[in-house]
């Protein structure tokens, strides 16, 4: 599974409150989440997310179990997220809602094209390719199905 997008650099320990604030959780309207994603981190970020691959620091998605966090990123057009490691509930949630992610410590160059292969395990930022642990077959299975809902919908 290969993804390509424009590099967007963010820092470490970005928690789920910063991805989507608690005050926007009382709805099922996904457009609301996409509109307010990262609002408390940087209100100018949301419009820049379409087609982006976010390269971020350690522990991305720490905090609450709110699935609205990966959903908001996906709805805003984020292609994938790359971090040295993720908070574990966010990791599961992202796979479950079909948002690709990969654990990799790689350099981040704003605006440069990024390609990552989740099954082969590598990330290319501009001219630099960095190896990464590939996603497990289990995760890839869910992700390629389009998320856990699709995965279960097609199971007997």
């Amino acid at each position: 599974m290969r993804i390509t997008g424009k590099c967007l650099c963010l820092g470490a320990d970005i928690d789920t409150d910063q991805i989507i604030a608690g005050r926007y959780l009382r709805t099922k309207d996904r457009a609301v989440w996409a509109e307010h994603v990262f609002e408390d981190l940087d209100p100018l970020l949301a419009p820049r997310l379409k087609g982006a691959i976010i390269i971020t620091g350690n522990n991305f998605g720490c905090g609450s179990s709110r699935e609205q966090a990966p959903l908001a990123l996906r709805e805003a057009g984020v292609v994938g997220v790359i971090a040295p490691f993720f908070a574990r509930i966010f990791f599961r949630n992202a796979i479950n809602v079909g948002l690709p992610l990969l654990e990799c410590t790689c350099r981040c160059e704003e605006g440069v094209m990024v390609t990552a292969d989740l099954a082969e395990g590598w990330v290319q930022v501009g001219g630099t390719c960095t190896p990464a642990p590939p996603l497990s077959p289990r995760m890839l299975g869910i992700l390629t199905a389009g998320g856990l809902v699709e995965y279960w919908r097609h199971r007997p």
Partner: protein
Amino acid sequence: MRSLSERLLGAPAGSYVDRPVDCSYAHDGTGVLTLEAWRAMGERGPVAPERLAILFDHIVPANTSTTANLQRELREFARTHGISFSEAGEGIAHQVMSEGRILPGEVVVGADSHTCTLGAFGAFATGMGATDVAAIWTSGMTWFKVPETIDVHLTGRLQGMAEAKDAALTYVSCLGMDGATYRALEFTGDGVSTLTMSDRLTLCNLAVETGAKTGMFYADEVTAAYLASYGKKGEPQHPEDHSCSREVALDLSDIEPVVALPHRVDSIVPVEKVAGTPLHQVFIGTCTNGRYEDLERLACMVRGKKVAVRTIVVPASRAVLQKAARTGVLDTILAAGCMVGTPGCGPCLGAHMGVIGEGEVCLSTANRNFRNRMGVGGSIYLSSVATAAAGALHGRITVPEVP
């Protein structure tokens, strides 16, 4: 020779297992998405509804038509399918589950990150997202990666005004916000026997703030006595030698009252370092510190005095509130000028009432102080109940003293 996680999940650390879940729950915040995902998965089951629960605690009672309609749908779903339902006002999901509904050895999955609280019973209890829980409704199972273990070795006994919350903030600071990612914490050592169930629930509650999958105590006589008060039996568990990825030693006798500074739960300092910081709000409650023992400690601190700043007290459950009403603790708290809210999560996540304004500072007994969490432009300091009570009485962060 296995860790408690390895024993309960039945495989060595690092392996993937598919396992039936003994108990799974969602609340009004995550349940809405769980229901949507379950329907999209094909409306199978729900499998073993007697093992499922839906508990309203996040936005209670409903604040807008949108919330009320979402809650109506979820309430009707629970009733139609014979799923245990806990109405607004019954309390925080983790607290209600802790009141005799979780037993040692069980595998528990909640659609909330602080499900790790219930590891205090010697259960493998962890938080997942809404769609994972929908898959449990659909199949009765889920997958786990068996975590490696970090041993938190407790010795000594808490002294003076130090509380389990201070010990919890101390280990979080020691491990850091990502120090236990993908791992499980096991609390062991001679110090364990000095801790009440309330203390243990507080210690396990903060496990997720280190990135841990869960925090666990081995069930012992204290666990058994607590469960017996609910008419339940809890068999003791005995630690085996096991490999762990890290050991942390914590002498409870050395723990002193601390606060976590905005906006990181792992940035702690002794209370005296920030004494005098003006406060606009004090909040006592949450799944960390909203139990009867916490309200009793608050009452002890404020008896016959008046708070100097708006102070919001939210009991963790109806049972807690009822006990506080029976024993006079509630009256003492009200007489001191505190306001008391509906049992639930209260202002913890800034979604419903008790929101703080721009530039305002809240001293809270909760578990998270992320930027803007309780209101845009506000700051949150985290502390024990005694430190929060001392702050409430003086309107400034104050070192708690024996009342």
